[in-house]
């Protein structure tokens, strides 16, 4: 988890020092390469098949969410299969984090870079199919037995842990900013979102504008 957050921090939340690096085009190269990759020609169906198998297995190991498997997906796609460069990998994770929607979409971005739209579809189905089937089956099983003591003990016992994990995620995302102004903004937003009904889109747009104007 923390490794993926650092990836994110390194790739998309530039410090003042790395801003100039971005301006000079150092980090635009991998993304430009991403767009320009001669996709389907580069990697054939056998690789796609192997990748699908790996993702099916990783899906069942993704306890705690999609970002938990980032290091292992990197090991498979970059180190062992050589489908992507490290830079391409980092760009995918950063883009999925910056965009709205589930973070698991970083897997689709990776698949797209490796083998175009077919790659995106294969990767997304691979990472989602086993875990979704399991979640569906277990949810039905648990709901039918919701008054059964082990199920009640599980729900009561896990509740404080789940709440703590939500705080933990907030802490991790805030800590990567490494900047007191960003931390103050995060704290103010936490209070506003907790105590008022201001729309999320308003808060996000406000943050985007404040950041774009260089206040953060």
């Amino acid at each position: 988890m923390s490794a993926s957050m650092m990836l994110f921090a390194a790739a998309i939340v530039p410090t003042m020092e790395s801003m100039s690096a971005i301006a000079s085009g150092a980090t635009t190269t991998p993304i430009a390469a991403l767009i320009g990759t001669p996709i389907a020609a580069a990697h054939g169906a056998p690789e796609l098949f192997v990748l699908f198998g790996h993702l099916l297995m990783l899906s069942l190991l993704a306890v705690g969410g999609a970002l938990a498997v980032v290091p292992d997906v990197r090991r498979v796609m970059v180190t062992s299969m050589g489908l992507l460069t490290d830079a391409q990998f980092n760009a995918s994770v950063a883009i999925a984090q910056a965009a709205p929607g589930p973070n698991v979409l970083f897997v689709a971005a990776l698949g797209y870079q490796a083998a175009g739209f077919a790659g995106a579809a294969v990767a997304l189905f691979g990472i989602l199919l086993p875990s979704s089937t399991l979640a569906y089956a277990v949810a039905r099983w648990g709901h039918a037995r919701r008054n059964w003591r082990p199920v009640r003990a599980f729900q009561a016992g896990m509740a404080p842990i789940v709440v703590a994990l939500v705080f933990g995620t907030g802490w991790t995302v805030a800590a990567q900013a490494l900047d007191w102004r960003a931390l103050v903004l995060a704290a103010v937003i936490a209070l506003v979102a907790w105590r008022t009904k201001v729309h999320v889109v308003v808060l996000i747009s406000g943050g985007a504008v404040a950041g774009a104007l260089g206040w953060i």
Partner: protein
Amino acid sequence: MQTRQPLARPESLGEMFWAFTFLALQGFGGVLAVSQRMLCERKRWLSHKQDVAALALAQVLPGPNVCNLALIVGDRFFGWRGAFTALAALMAAPLVLVLAITVAYAHYSHVPMVAGAIKGIGAVSAGLIVATGLKLLPALHENTMRLPACLLFGGATFIAVALMGWPLIGVLFGIGLIACAYAWLRISAAERALTQTEQS
């Protein structure tokens, strides 16, 4: 803070599809914060207690937490069709956006304003996630383990995961198992007390 209105149900698969589409599109840096707003506060499909219970299941099971949550909530109201609809709605629009943003970002990533805006969005999403945690806290008052025990297990989890950076699977099986065992004892004790009152 929390109004006590009765819970509602989604009227159709279409309503559920659009709710999850909007929810997904608002989820910058994590859909979890928005899901609570949409499901508990705006739509009133779940109580905070039900939300925490569904989240507990969604987080312990492997796979993306929000996707699991969508499957669980969708199934609750419309069976497998609901589960499929909620998951598809959660993924479809953001998937298109992720691929589109990849192209746009490649063109404009050298602009400092774009990098700044993304940093601002990151700070806001951190705040939103913390607010989600604050709103889930009242649900712990109803917990059978009582508040001090909840704070103990929650605090230990936060320290292990956020501050120490320990692997989640070990924390879930370690602290989780102890917490569930303690909850089991509390439920057993409560049921024994109940039968004794009935007998006397």
